[in-house]
């Protein structure tokens, strides 16, 4: 569904998604916002689109080449037509194809007339005028209201086309809008549905049966940001530690700040800091006070937090740093996705400053990933970086809601007593040091960024001690228990495709297509980038060929080669767009033949 930024495409998309979820299809969605806040209306730069992929079986990605495009104006058509599958259906709002609008979109002549769309099935629907007619005569409805309701007309047509339940949407409209606007939206939606049903123009209704092999449970649709917010709150509740979240606005990480800022009801304290350095420092200060300190940012902000993260490594305090990656370097492409901060997360600090790095693999999995990041940070007294990205943060999928009672316990084990003098740099079995917070009598101590003497934590410039502490910090991180890497597919396949982060679904989908075509390919996915699962090296060696696709120029491949002395083949993509199953499929076939 694509239209001008003001056309309400995100709203129509999310309503269609809800109806689809309730109907019981599996799905994944991806919004595509224009980069400019107020791009000129009618231009390609101002197009806002929403993509949904749904089916009666396991859905792994928001899809690569859509089967149906709703284009509310010529610019929306122009911006999206190249993505479509040959033979796809295009529903256009015919009313919006005026000469002026066509030129504004950058077409010389009408694409509806000049053969541009040969090879597609084009349905011309005068959506604006049909909407106007549908709401005419409703009390108090202005012509502006009528114009604004055309997204619901489009939603109505699509809902009929795919036989979505209408009650879900109608209930939502009634709850959301009051008075004439509500009446207009409802009328527009129903008119769209009736148009689908009665018009000869759209002759087939597509049935997509509910998915039957879905695990039982209660579901909701979440995007990565929402799941991350819930995961952090869950970690706070389960650990009993207050959540203090410091952030400085940056696309696409700000949404997490927005989501958490509303959660006073769960005791969440957010601070919009003066910059990213402060945001990270506030989280560290809060951690010293016994809170779950969290900070979230994207590329340029991670650069700024680096020094503070190093401090947390030295202080050995829990800290969760979430990096919602975007295309860099520098300001790069703030609204485009990438996985190019991996090496920075692993190594981007001065001195030897190891820390655990995790990556979220799907929107719903963000919950588990951030919960695990917090659990590790608290258990091992260490900063943890969680790599998310714009794609996983913004796309959505149904999420099976866990029971709070079933979440793994997080025990902060705050130190409250001591038998002799308190030694803040002694260690437990995990090599974690005691966490004693201000207010605890008898445990007052001072820590800082200067090298610590082992056990006592006193300032030390002794070389041997430094070597020992360096090793302890490294051993602590590398000793973190992470689950083994699992193979999906045959263990003796001809090729292993190993991925990390948000390309999980794409890799699974691409490999599935190859398998359906008779290819012998297996997949595996890394959720822990440091430490990596203990079996990683051995597993990679059991395959003749290993392909590592990632949205960068080969950072994980570089790491795997360095760490395990194995040869892996890199497939890198840095176009600001997620990997697509179709291109993965092609890459895999190339290596199998």
């Amino acid at each position, binding site marked *: 569904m694509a239209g001008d930024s003001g056309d309400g495409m995100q709203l129509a998309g999310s309503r269609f998604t*809800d109806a689809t*979820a*309730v109907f*019981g299809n599996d799905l994944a969605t991806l919004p595509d916002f224009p980069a400019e806040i107020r791009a000129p209306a009618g231009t390609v730069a101002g197009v806002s689109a929403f993509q949904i992929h749904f089916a009666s079986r396991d859905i792994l990605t928001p899809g690569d080449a859509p089967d149906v495009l709703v284009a509310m104006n010529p610019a929306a058509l122009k911006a999206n037509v190249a993505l479509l599958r040959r033979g796809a259906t295009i529903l256009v709002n015919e009313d919006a194809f005026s000469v002026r609008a066509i030129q504004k979109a950058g077409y010389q002549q009408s694409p509806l007339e000049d053969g541009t769309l040969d090879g597609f099935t084009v349905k011309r629907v005068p959506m604006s005028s049909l909407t106007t007619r549908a709401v005419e005569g409703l009390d108090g409805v202005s012509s502006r209201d009528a114009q604004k309701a055309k997204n619901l007309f489009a939603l109505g047509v699509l809902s009929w086309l795919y036989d979505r339940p209408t009650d*879900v949407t109608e209930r939502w409209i009634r709850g959301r809008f009051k008075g004439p606007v509500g009446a207009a939206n409802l009328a527009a939606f129903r008119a769209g549905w009736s148009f689908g049903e009665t018009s000869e123009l759209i002759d087939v209704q597509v049935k997509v049966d509910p998915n039957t092999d879905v*695990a*039982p*449970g*209660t*579901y*909701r649709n979440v995007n990565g940001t929402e799941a991350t917010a*819930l995961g952090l*709150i869950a970690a*706070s*509740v*389960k650990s009993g530690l*207050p959540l*203090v979240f410091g952030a400085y606005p940056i696309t696409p990480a700000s949404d997490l700040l927005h989501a958490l800022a509303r959660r*006073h*009801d*769960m*005791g*969440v*304290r957010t*601070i919009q*800091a*003066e*910059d990213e*350095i*402060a945001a990270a*420092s*506030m*989280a*560290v*200060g*809060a*951690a*010293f*006070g016994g*809170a779950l*300190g969290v900070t979230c940012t994207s590329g340029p902000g991670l650069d700024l937090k680096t*020094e*503070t993260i190093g*401090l947390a490594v030295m*202080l050995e305090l829990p800290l969760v740093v979430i990096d919602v990656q975007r295309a860099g370097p520098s300001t790069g492409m703030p609204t485009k996705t990438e996985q190019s901060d991996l090496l920075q997360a692993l190594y981007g600090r001065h001195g030897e400053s190891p820390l655990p790095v995790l990556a979220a693999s799907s929107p719903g999995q963000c919950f588990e990933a951030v919960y695990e990041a917090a659990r590790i940070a608290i258990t091992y007294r260490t900063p943890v970086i969680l790599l998310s990205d714009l794609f996983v943060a913004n796309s959505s999928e149904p999420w099976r*809601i866990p*029971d*709070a009672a079933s979440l793994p316990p997080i025990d902060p084990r705050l130190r409250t007593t001591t038998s002799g003098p308190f030694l803040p740099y002694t260690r437990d079995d995990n090599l974690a040091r005691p966490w004693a917070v*201000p*207010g605890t*009598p*008898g445990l*007052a*101590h*001072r*820590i*800082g*960024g200067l090298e610590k003497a082992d056990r006592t934590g*006193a*300032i030390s410039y002794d070389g041997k001690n430094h070597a020992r502490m360096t090793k302890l910090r490294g051993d602590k991180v590398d000793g973190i228990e992470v689950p083994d890497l699992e193979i999906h597919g045959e263990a003796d396949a001809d090729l292993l495709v190993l991925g990390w982060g948000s390309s999980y679904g794409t890799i699974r989908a691409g490999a599935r297509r190859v398998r359906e075509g008779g290819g012998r390919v297996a997949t595996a996915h890394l959720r822990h980038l440091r430490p990596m699962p203990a079996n990683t090296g051995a597993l990679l060696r059991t395959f003749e060929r290993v392909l590592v696709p990632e949205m960068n120029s080969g950072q994980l491949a570089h790491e795997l080669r360095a760490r395990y002395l194995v040869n892996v083949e890199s497939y890198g993509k840095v176009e600001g767009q997620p990997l697509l199953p179709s291109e993965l499929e092609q890459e895999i076939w190339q290596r199998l033949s």
Partner: protein
Amino acid sequence: MAAPELTKADFQSDQETRWCPGCGDYAVLAAVQAFFPELGIPPERIMFVSGIGCAGRFAYYMDTYGMHGIHGRGPALATGLAAARDDLSIWVVTGDGDALSIGGNHLIHALRRNVPVKILLFNNQIYGLTKGQASPTSERGKVTKSTPFGSIDAPFNPLSLALGAEATFVARTIDTDKQHLPAVLRAAAAHDGAAFVEIYQNCPVFNDGAFDALRDKRRGAINRIYLEHGAPIRGVVRAADGTLRLGDDGEPVVHDAHREDPSFAFALSRLSSTPDGPTPIGVFRDVQRAVSGRDLFAELQAARAGATDASLDALMRSGDTWTVS
């Protein structure tokens, strides 16, 4: 059972102090350690946060909770701690380079937010720890290793800056003034909100004598203008054009630290920018304003106390859900 009286020794950590002989930091440390028992706050409820610099070492020497952070970020670290805990007495120790150069942004925002922390700025008008470069308070023309031909940059007036940042408590004192320094600390501790205290601190190694006009017994007696709320300010008058001036040609001025309008305190702060002549010391401004996060604490604490598996379940299940059986 009444808690035993605290003494100076209760605040002395076992870390060996490592400042240069004669450094003004020793005098401040001794005064602070001697003063703290008076607050009646047990050491475990006190936190010292510092940045990097000679002054930053301060945090190691107080037998309280402490964090020696990173250069300039002390106020940000302290802000985070204050967001997590409202039951602590939080003090930040910083230098002129730490607070006004690399950490300038955090300083002004901590003051603007009125975070309940006490910020002690040890101003020696030089970078001590890095061995003698010009600092943002070094006077124009100052010859240092990094400014061999004299500094070409104008210095900050730290008090004017703090006032411009909406600070609710602004004061100045001198490292060796054994009566005045604790008096200012007392007022800062009593202030509800962010307190900013500039302490003139001699660095005998890299900038010796910078404050002699005030530290020296004989000259100091002439040059120190002690500010006392409600008392006339010695040697300061309101001139015919309404401005505050040093001298005796005009109306006597009575000090009002509680004046809402910061322009009075600002005018006082402008009377001397380099301490080589008569200089006001004491509390310039002490007013009330909403304290950062104060109203939120009870609400968030209550919410957390009520946050159980059940409320987490309810939150996770909010919005449109569906069930597959």
